[in-house]
């Protein structure tokens, strides 16, 4: 275990102590203790930033399940470092912010909040720092779980529960499909290590499983990163406390899909399918998100749709940039690698401005009691600091100079324009759409930024519509958004601070094949490119964006604007309803409440399963009938067997329960006698004792049972029962015969030989049966008694805690 391993595990370890901090230091906000961890981790991670020269990836392995090729391998390169810094950095700011956002009240379960948050942090670090696909999958699902728990933090609200369930369903479905994709990768490459898979990338490209694996993994990435049409969970996830939205649902978790795509670009990149899928889904998400955002009235909903659209932007950039893998000539590639550079750069920028905006919206919500833009207005003079931060964040998001959003937006346009010149993948036919769609989406992005800004901060202050008297937030709450907003300005003015430290190493891990040994990318970002198409596109965005905002009044009453909910939600809701109704129908069919039905199901299943297995392996044999050698059957044995058969045959004709119990007892004791004859004293003893205890049990149960009524059975019912019992009997007989025959023909040694020989030397016991029970098959025994114990508890629960009717089950 290296320090980096502990770095991943640290949040989990910290989470163990959180409840104690919460309980013992009740007066101190638990957040202060939690804050230490991400801060320390962030500072620790900073030392890995390369200072000049390419970054050397770090790989450290701790075996987990080596026999299956699953190792907890930490792999730290530019891409993982970027994400790890985001997770810890934004994490620290979010924790600080949450200390003021969620007050330390008596009934506020702060311990839950921070345990979930730390669980998320650790899981996310695990996703971005692991090299092993299975480990990534485990952490990936943990992030889904943590996210869903955090969304449902205020679980008494119905909407929170709905949102949590929705995000869980959608992301976990994606996670499962991703696991399937990972398994296919394993089938092709025989390894779970990403680096080893990348090394084999050239050979697996023609494998028939290559495309299915890609599709399955992309489904995982798209659901996590809220790509169209799976984005519908993200707006509902806004029911989470705002620090959570800022952290999980804009800065980190939703970027896990982006991370995965970037990480696997060396494997799948360069193929037409990867290029088109990412680009199309990304662009559709981009446009859909930005158009949906302008009709939202809730500030957080605007930000949610804006996040969706920005994620689409990054995704499409990764798609366009993946074309660079196709070529291997460096100078051509750099043209398309711009898109990847833009993706990485925008990823950082988005985290800064969107994080600060979420926090600002949280402040507005906290200090006014509402997030509805119809009720807000005129907060500019009341909340000047909040206003300034929002101005910076929104201007950056809208793509205005001199903020970092402007730079990455320009690069985005450059990327899309460059992509139109591609001469592969039939881009020449539809490629012109890239810049067009990008431009349209940017117009709407500009428009919703303006709406957010003007409706919140300008106009008339309407105190009568607010739940609280509006005032500026406490300083502590402002620190985090101020830090993020200043980063927006700093990265905007000095973008090359990020160039060699983090963008170049990250690009190096996304596009490793473009570089010669020891070479590095050269990233130079500057504001003024001259009068090029990008600049005109930006000017066009501003002009048309203004037009949209100014004409908004005219469209406000149209149905398009009045309907806030995404129409795709209807598909999800009806799908969920259908699922519930469908499973209810299946359950109703199967759970009849009659024991005999369950018994019939079990028998039928067993008959078919065992019968099928026997036929499948061609194990049926009737030879033993032919070579049947009765041996010496003593008269005593004849008597026992005949009485046994007679007793069994009378069973179906017995009308009275007490007689039935006695006859079953007779059968049991006769079987015990048979065991005695065949020299199995242990079995005989057990059988006798079980019979004795059983009689007491039956007599007790008998006391509670109603009078046995004569039931009228339909012929069909009788026939089914007959068929099942005959089938069962036949099956057991045939199996017995076949086993006997196989033993003769195949010449297997009976397994008992081993026990006869081994029981004294290996287990020191002369009683073979008992030695098997406690030693050779000890685990079986242990689990059997466990089953017994569970059954007994079941009896107790059923009887002592009976339903009186009306309980909520």
């Amino acid at each position, binding site marked *: 275990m290296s320090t980096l391993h502990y770095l991943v595990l640290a949040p989990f370890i910290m989470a163990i102590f959180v409840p104690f901090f919460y309980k013992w230091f009740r007066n101190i906000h638990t957040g202060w203790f939690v804050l230490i961890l991400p801060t320390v981790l962030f500072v620790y991670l900073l030392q890995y930033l390369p200072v000049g020269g390419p970054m050397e990836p770090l790989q450290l392995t701790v075996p987990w399940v080596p026999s299956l090729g699953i190792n907890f391998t930490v792999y730290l390169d530019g891409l993982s470092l970027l994400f790890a810094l985001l997770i810890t950095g934004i994490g620290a700011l979010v924790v600080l912010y949450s200390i003021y956002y969620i007050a330390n009240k008596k009934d506020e379960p702060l311990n839950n909040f921070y345990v979930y948050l730390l669980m998320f942090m650790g899981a996310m670090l695990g996703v971005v720092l692991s090299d092993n696909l299975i480990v990534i999958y485990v952490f990936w699902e943990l992030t889904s779980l943590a996210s869903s728990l955090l969304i449902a933090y205020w679980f008494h609200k119905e909407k929170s529960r709905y949102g949590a369930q929705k995000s869980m369903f959608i992301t976990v479905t994606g996670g499962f499909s991703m696991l399937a994709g990972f398994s296919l990768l394993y089938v092709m490459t025989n390894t779970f290590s990403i680096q080893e898979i990348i090394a084999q990338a050239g050979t697996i490209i023609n494998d028939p499983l290559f495309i299915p694996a890609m599709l399955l993994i992309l489904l995982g990435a798209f659901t996590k990163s809220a790509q169209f049409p799976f984005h519908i969970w993200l707006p509902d996830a806004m029911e989470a406390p705002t620090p959570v939205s800022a952290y999980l649902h804009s800065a980190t978790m939703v970027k896990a899909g982006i991370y995965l795509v970037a990480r696997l670009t060396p494997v799948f990149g360069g193929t037409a399918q990867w290029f088109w899928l990412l680009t199309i889904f990304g662009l559709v998400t981009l446009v859909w998100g930005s158009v949906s955002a302008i009709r939202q009235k809730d500030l957080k909903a605007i930000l949610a749709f804006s996040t969706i659209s920005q994620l689409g932007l990054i995704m499409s950039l990764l798609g366009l940039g993946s074309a660079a893998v196709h070529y291997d000539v460096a100078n051509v590639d750099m043209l398309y690698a711009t898109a990847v550079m833009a993706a990485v750069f925008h990823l950082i920028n988005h985290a800064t401005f969107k994080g600060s905006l979420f926090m600002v919206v949280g402040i507005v919500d906290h200090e006014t009691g509402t997030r509805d833009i119809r009720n807000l207005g005129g907060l500019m003079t009341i909340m000047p600091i909040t206003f300034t931060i929002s101005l910076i964040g929104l201007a950056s998001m809208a793509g205005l100079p001199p903020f970092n959003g402007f730079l990455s937006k320009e690069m985005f346009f450059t990327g899309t324009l460059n992509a139109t010149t591609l001469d592969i993948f039939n881009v020449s036919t539809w490629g012109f759409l890239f810049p067009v769609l990008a431009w349209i989406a940017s117009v709407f992005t500009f428009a919703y930024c303006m709406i957010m800004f003007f409706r919140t901060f300008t106009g008339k202050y309407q105190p009568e519509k607010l739940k609280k008297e509006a005032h500026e937030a406490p300083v502590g709450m402002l620190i985090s958004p101020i830090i993020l907003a200043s980063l927006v300005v700093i990265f905007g003015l000095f973008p090359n601070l990020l160039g060699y430290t983090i963008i170049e190493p990250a690009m190096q891990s996304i596009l490793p094949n473009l570089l010669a040994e020891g070479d590095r990318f050269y990233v130079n970002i500057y504001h003024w490119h001259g009068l090029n198409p990008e600049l005109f596109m930006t000017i066009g965005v501003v002009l048309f964006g203004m037009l949209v905002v100014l004409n908004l009044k005219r469209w406000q009453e149209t149905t398009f604007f009045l309907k806030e909910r995404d129409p795709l939600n209807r598909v999800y809701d009806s799908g969920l309803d259908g699922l519930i109704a469908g499973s209810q129908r299946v359950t109703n069919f199967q759970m009849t409440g009659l024991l005999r039905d369950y018994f019939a199901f079990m028998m039928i299943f067993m008959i078919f399963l065992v019968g099928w297995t026997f036929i499948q392996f061609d194990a049926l044999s009737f030879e033993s009938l032919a070579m049947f050698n009765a041996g010496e059957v003593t008269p005593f044995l004849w008597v026992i067997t005949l009485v046994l058969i007679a007793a069994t045959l009378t069973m179906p004709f017995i009308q009275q329960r007490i007689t039935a119990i006695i006859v079953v007892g007779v059968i049991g004791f006769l079987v015990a006698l048979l065991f005695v004859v065949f020299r199995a*004293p*242990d079995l005989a*003893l*057990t059988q006798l*004792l*079980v019979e*004795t*205890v059983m009689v*007491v*049990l039956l007599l*007790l*149960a008998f006391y*509670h049972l109603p009078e046995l009524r004569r039931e009228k059975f339909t012929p069909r019912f009788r026939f089914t029962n007959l068929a099942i019992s005959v089938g069962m009997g036949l099956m057991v007989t045939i199996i017995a015969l076949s086993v006997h025959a196989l033993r003769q023909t195949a010449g297997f040694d009976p397994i008992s030989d081993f026990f006869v020989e081994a029981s004294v030397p290996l*287990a*020191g*016991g*002369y*009683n073979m*049966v*008992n*030695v098997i*029970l*406690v*030693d050779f098959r*000890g*685990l079986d*025994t*242990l689990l059997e*008694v*466990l089953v*017994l*114990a569970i*059954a*007994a*508890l079941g*009896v*107790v629960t059923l*009887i*002592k805690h*009976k339903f009186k009717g009306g309980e909520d089950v």
Partner: protein
Amino acid sequence: MKTNFLMLHTITRIVAFIILSFSVFLFFAGHNNPGGGFIGGLMTASALLLLYVSFDLKTIKRVIPFNYSTMIAVGLLIAIATGLNSFLFGDPFLTQYFEYYDLPVLGETELTTALPFDLGIYLVVVGVALLTILTIAEDDA
């Protein structure tokens, strides 16, 4: 009319203890002769059941104040603990050990970790049988 179970009570008092001591014998005999935790447990359970059947529930509960659900838990824990014991020696779960010792009074005796494991099984079996039966018996609804 007051019913009199004098005969039953007298016989039960004697027989139950014979069965109980036989069950203890069975339990210890298990490793080399017919018997063992499962059979011993069932035998003990039937002895106790005999007591319950001939006397009434209340009396016997006062005489034998066992909590059978605790007994199940203790049994399972003993069995699992014996299994975990082998981890101390770097062996897989549930590895059993045995060794012959020369003990006073008993002479040369085999001591084996299978015995505590069997004790766990014994306790679970007794607990399950009695818990189930007594729960059903106490149910007066």
